């Protein structure tokens, strides 16, 4: 019973995170301006990282942790580069 409850709770959490990704993607498509899209992309990255962490719990595998770490790092780099580009017109001066 307890294992069923754990799996059910994690499934609900994954559904919520997938919906959160869908909302962020919707904002990414709607804009209206470039910095709105960058903010939506950052949110999308964070939600994807949380979703992959929850997948790691469901499959009881440590491999997903590294994937989540890499996604978190890439999310930061891409968002920071995009924000820097919007700020100055070039990424590295």
């Amino acid at each position, binding site marked *: 019973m307890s294992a069923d409850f754990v799996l059910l709770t994690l499934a609900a959490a994954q559904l*919520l995170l997938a919906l959160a990704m869908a909302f962020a993607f919707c904002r990414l498509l709607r804009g209206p301006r*470039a910095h709105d899209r960058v903010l939506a992309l950052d949110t999308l990255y964070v939600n994807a990282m*949380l979703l992959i962490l929850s997948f790691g*719990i469901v499959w009881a595998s440590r491999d997903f942790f590294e994937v989540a*770490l890499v996604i978190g790092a890439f999310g930061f780099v891409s968002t920071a580069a995009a*924000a820097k580009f919007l700020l100055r017109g070039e990424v590295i001066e």
Partner: protein
Amino acid sequence: MTTVAALLVLAGALLAFLGSLGLLRMKTFFERVHPPTMGTTLGTALVLAGSLLYFTTVESRLVLHEILIAVLMTVTTPVTYLLLGRAALRRSDERQD
């Protein structure tokens, strides 16, 4: 103990969900910056705490890898939002909308 871990993950997912909902529903950019931070701070912290608790229970040894992601998020999120907010401020000076 795994039940507590699953509930922590659910609470974190709920925060991330509400943050993304706010991102979709708010009207202006400077309102929209606020909601996703719920997911990136407390949401991430709760999911990571759940993951840490779950693997510590299942493998019956102390598993602390998750702290790495927590440190990464804590350090990088303010930098990202600072750059983004500054860019938005600069760009909204150029053209009002």
